[in-house]
C-alpha cells in the first residue's frame, strides 16, 4: 500500500463535498481528492427526485439528481480532482492521514495538507424518541423509505402514517400518494410544521392529507407487521392529553423525526462540537477548532436548501486550499457568535480575527419558534451590526444575514443574535 499525497482531501461526495472540491481547485489547490462511500457521487440528492433544487444558484427548478449532475460533471471534467467511490473513510488522524476501504482498491491510505468533512447527516430513529409498542416490520425512517421507493423500486407500505412534518416527512407524504399508497395522516409533536411552507402546501394541502399538529404517536400496534398506531394530542408541555387518543390503522409508519450531523470521525479526533447543531464549531472559513480541518454542509448543521450547502462547500473548499498553500490568514483571536432570545442556532459560531478588508460574513440562523412580524438584531458591544424586520420566521426555514466585519474590532467581545416580536423589539 503506497501512500498518496493531496493538497485537500474531502470526505463525502454530496453537494457540500462537490462544491468544496471545485472551489478548492479554483483557489489554487493542485491535487484534490473526494472519498465517497456510496457507489456514486451526489449524496442525499440522488434519492431526491422531486424538484425545487437550485432556485438560488441556477435560477432554475432542478431535481436532486439534476442539481447534483451539474456538479458531478464539472468535478469529473477536472483532472486535478481524484474521485474514489465505494471508499468508506474509517479513520482520520490529526496529522491528516486518512484511511479508507474499498472493495476494488482495498485499503486506501492518503495524506493531505487540509481536510474537509462533508459527511452529511443521518436520521434520528424510533429508539431515540422511545415510542412504546412492538417492534414489527413496517417502521422505517423516511429517508430509508425514500431511497427504496425512488432508487430501488420497492414500497415500504400501502397504508401509511408519517410522524414528523419536516421536509422529508412532507415530501414522502406526496411521494407515497403518487405511488398509489394511502397516507392517513402526518402527525407532528410541535404546534407548527418544521418543513418549508411550500412543502406543506404542495405535499399535504394539495393532496388533502391531514396534518395533526401538537399530536404524537403513543403506541405501535402489530407484532409482525405494523397494523396501526395510536395517536394522541399533547399540551403545551408536550404531555399527552388524557382521553384524546385515537387509532389509525396502517401497515407502515414512516419516521421523519430529525437529522443528526454525522460526526463520528470528527468526534474521534476531539473536534469541538456544538451541542445544539450537533456539528463542529466553525469560524467564517468553516475551519473547526483543529487547525487544517474544515467542515461544510449537513455535517455542520442541517440545511433545508441545497444552494446554501453548495455555498458553504465553496467557502470550505476555498479556505482549505488557502490553508494548504499557507495563505489562509492565521487567526490571532476569536469573537464568539451567540444565539440568544428567539434564535436556536447560529453558524459560524465564531469569527476569527483579523478579517480582510471589506470581508463580509454570512450568518445562518434558525428561529426557536415561529414568529410573525419579528425583528432580527445582531449586535456587539460596539453597537448594532444588523437590524432587520422579518414578516415570518419559522424554525424550518434558515434565516440568513450578512454582517460586514469592518465593524468588528478585537475588543468587541461577542456578537449576539436575537429574534424578538416587533411589539417587544421596538422598531
Amino acid at each position: 500500500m503506497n501512500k498518496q499525497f493531496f493538497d485537500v482531501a474531502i470526505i463525502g461526495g454530496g453537494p457540500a463535498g462537490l462544491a468544496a472540491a471545485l472551489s478548492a481547485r479554483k483557489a489554487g489547490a493542485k491535487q484534490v481528492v473526494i472519498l465517497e462511500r456510496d457507489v456514486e457521487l451526489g449524496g442525499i440528492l440522488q434519492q431526491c427526485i422531486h424538484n425545487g433544487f437550485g432556485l438560488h444558484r441556477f435560477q432554475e427548478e432542478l431535481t436532486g439528481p439534476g442539481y447534483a449532475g451539474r456538479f458531478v460533471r464539472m468535478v469529473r471534467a477536472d483532472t486535478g480532482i481524484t474521485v474514489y467511490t465505494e471508499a468508506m473513510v474509517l479513520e482520520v488522524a490529526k496529522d491528516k492521514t486518512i484511511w479508507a476501504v474499498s472493495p476494488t482498491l482495498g485499503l486506501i491510505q492518503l495524506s493531505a495538507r487540509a481536510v474537509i468533512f462533508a459527511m452529511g447527516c443521518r436520521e434520528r430513529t424510533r429508539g431515540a424518541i422511545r415510542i412504546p409498542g412492538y417492534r414489527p416490520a413496517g417502521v422505517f425512517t423516511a429517508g430509508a423509505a425514500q431511497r427504496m421507493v425512488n432508487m430501488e423500486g420497492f414500497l415500504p407500505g400501502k397504508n401509511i402514517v408519517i410522524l414528523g412534518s419536516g421536509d422529508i416527512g412532507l415530501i414522502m407524504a406526496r411521494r407515497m400518494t403518487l405511488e398509489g399508497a394511502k397516507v392517513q395522516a402526518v402527525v407532528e409533536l410541535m404546534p407548527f410544521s418544521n418543513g418549508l411552507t411550500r412543502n406543506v402546501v404542495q405535499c399535504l394541502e394539495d393532496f388533502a392529507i391531514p396534518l395533526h399538529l401538537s399530536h404524537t404517536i403513543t403506541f405501535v400496534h402489530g407484532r409482525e407487521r405494523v397494523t396501526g398506531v395510536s395517536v394522541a394530542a399533547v399540551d403545551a408541555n408536550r404531555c399527552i392529553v388524557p382521553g384524546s387518543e385515537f387509532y389509525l390503522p396502517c401497515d407502515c409508519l414512516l419516521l421523519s423525526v430529525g437529522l443528526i450531523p454525522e460526526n463520528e470521525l470528527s468526534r474521534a479526533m476531539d473536534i469541538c462540537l456544538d451541542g445544539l447543531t450537533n456539528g463542529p464549531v466553525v469560524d467564517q472559513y468553516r475551519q473547526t477548532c483543529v487547525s487544517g480541518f474544515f467542515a461544510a454542509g449537513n455535517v455542520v448543521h442541517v440545511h433545508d436548501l441545497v444552494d446554501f450547502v453548495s455555498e458553504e462547500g465553496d467557502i470550505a473548499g476555498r479556505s482549505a486550499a488557502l490553508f494548504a498553500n499557507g495563505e489562509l490568514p492565521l487567526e490571532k483571536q476569536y469573537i464568539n457568535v451567540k444565539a440568544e432570545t428567539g434564535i436556536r442556532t447560529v453558524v459560524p459560531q465564531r469569527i476569527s480575527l483579523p478579517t480582510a478588508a471589506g470581508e463580509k460574513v454570512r450568518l445562518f440562523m434558525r428561529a426557536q419558534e415561529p414568529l410573525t412580524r419579528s425583528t432580527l438584531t445582531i449586535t456587539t458591544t460596539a453597537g448594532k451590526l444588523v437590524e432587520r424586520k422579518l414578516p415570518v420566521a419559522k424554525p424550518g426555514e434558515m434565516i440568513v444575514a450578512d454582517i460586514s466585519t469592518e465593524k468588528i474590532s478585537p475588543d468587541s467581545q461577542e456578537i449576539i443574535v436575537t429574534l424578538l416580536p416587533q411589539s417587544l423589539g421596538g422598531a
Partner: protein
Amino acid sequence: MSTISKADVVVIGGGIVGAAVARELSRYQLDIVLLEAETDIAMGTSKANSAILHAGFDAKPTCWKARLNVLGNALYRQLQDELKLHIGWTGSLVVAKDPVDMAVLEELLVRGQQNGVNGLALLGRDEVLAREPNLASDITGALWAPTAGIICPFGATFAFAENAIRNGATLLRETPALDIVVENGRVAGVRTPQGVINTKFVVNAAGVRADDIARLAGDESFTIQARKGEYILFDRSVRNLVNSVIFPAPSKISKGILIAPTVHGNLFIGPDAQNIDDKTDIAATGNGMDRVITGARRLVPNLPLQAAITQFSGLRATAEDGDFILRESEAARGLVHAAGIQSPGLTAAPAIAQVVSALLKEAGLKLSEKRDFNPANPLKPAFQELSWEQRSSLIASNPLYGRVICRCETVTEAEIVAAIHSPCGARTVDGVKRRVRAGSGRCQGGFCGPRVTAILARELNIPMTEVRKDSIDSRLFFDKLPGNCEVPAHE
C-alpha cells in the same frame, strides 16, 4: 422441508437452554433434532435479558438455581475459548443506600459463600465510588463479586447451536412442535407441520411455552407465568458511565433495575417486572420505560437519555415455587423438562445441559461418546476489531471485506454473507443483526437495513418482497406499483 422421520432425541425450543442441550448431547452418538417454531433461534427470552453471567449469591443454597448458577459460571470460563464467546469478566456490585440495604448485602455475602462463590467482598462507600465514579453519591457500600461477567446472549445461543450442528445435530427452524405422541405412558414421537418425528426422548426447553409443551404430553404438573421486563439500550458514546454490572440491593421479588455495560460497548438499564397473561406480549410500554428510568436514576443520577438507541423487553418464565424444573415427566416417560428457566438461566445453561443429559441417561437413553466430537467453533474475523494490515489482506482475499454495509458498526458485506451461510445461518434482517451487529448501532439499520435485505434476497435466492425483518410474517417491502406519476426530471 423437513424429511426427518426419526431421531434419538428431539429438543423443543431453540433458546440458550435448547441450544446448550443439543450441543451437550452432540458429544454422543445420537441423532439429535433441535426444533424451533420461529424463523431463527434465540428469538425468545434468550434474546432479551440482562446478559449477565451472575456470580451466584442470589439463590438459596439448596435449590437448582444456586448450584447451576455457580457451575454454569465456571463452565463458561472453559467454553469461552472453545466456542469463541464474547464475554467480559467485569465483576458486579450490589449497592446499598441505607442500613436495611447493608443488612441485605451481608445476607447475600453469607449466602454467596455457602453457594461457593469466590472472591466476594463488602466495599465501603469510598472504595465503590473510586471504582464507579458516576454512581449516586448517597450510596453507603456495596457487595463486590469479581466472578460476575457480561455476555452476548444470542451470540452464545448461536455458538452452542452451531457447534451442535458441526457435530451432526439437525436444526429445523419454522418448525413448531404441534403435538407429542405418547404411547403407554412413554413418548413415541413429536408431530410437526412436516409430519411426525419418531423418537423416544424429548427435551422440553420451550421457555415461557414449556407448560403448553408439557400439556401436549398430558402433563399438567406445572404452569408458567410470564413476567415481562423492559429495557432501554444506549449508544456506545456513553459506554464509560459504568465499568461493571451495578445492581441495587434486591427486594423480595426481583433483583431490581440495574445498569450495566454490554460486551459490544453499549450500556443498558432495566428490567422492571410485570406479570402478563399474553405470552407474546413483548411491547414496550410508557409506564415500563418510566419505571426503568426512575429505578436506574437511583443508581446513576445523570442518565444520558438522549443517547437511547432502542428499547426491548423479555419474558421471564416463572414457575410456581420459583426454582428451575428439571426432571423427567411422570405423565410421559422419556420427556425431560427444562422448564421455569428464569434468571440465572443464561448463566446456568451449560450446567442445565449437563443435568438434562444425565436425566435422559437415567430415563434410558444410551450415551456413547463420539470419537470425532469437535468442541470448538472456528474464529470469525470481525472487521472492526482488526489491524489495518489484517484488513488489507482480508480485502485482498475477498473484496467484499472492502464494502462496509453498516456504517455505525463497520460491518462488511463479507461478514454478512458469511453469517448467512454459516451453520444455523441468518435468514432475516434481525438474524443478521444478532450475528454480526449490522443495524445494531445508533442508526438502528436506517441506512443498512435495505442493503441487508437485498443481500439476504440475493444469497437466499428469494425475492426482496419475501425477506423478513424477524418473525414469520414480518415481510419488509412490497413491489413498487406501476405508475406514471414520476415528477419529470429537468435534466
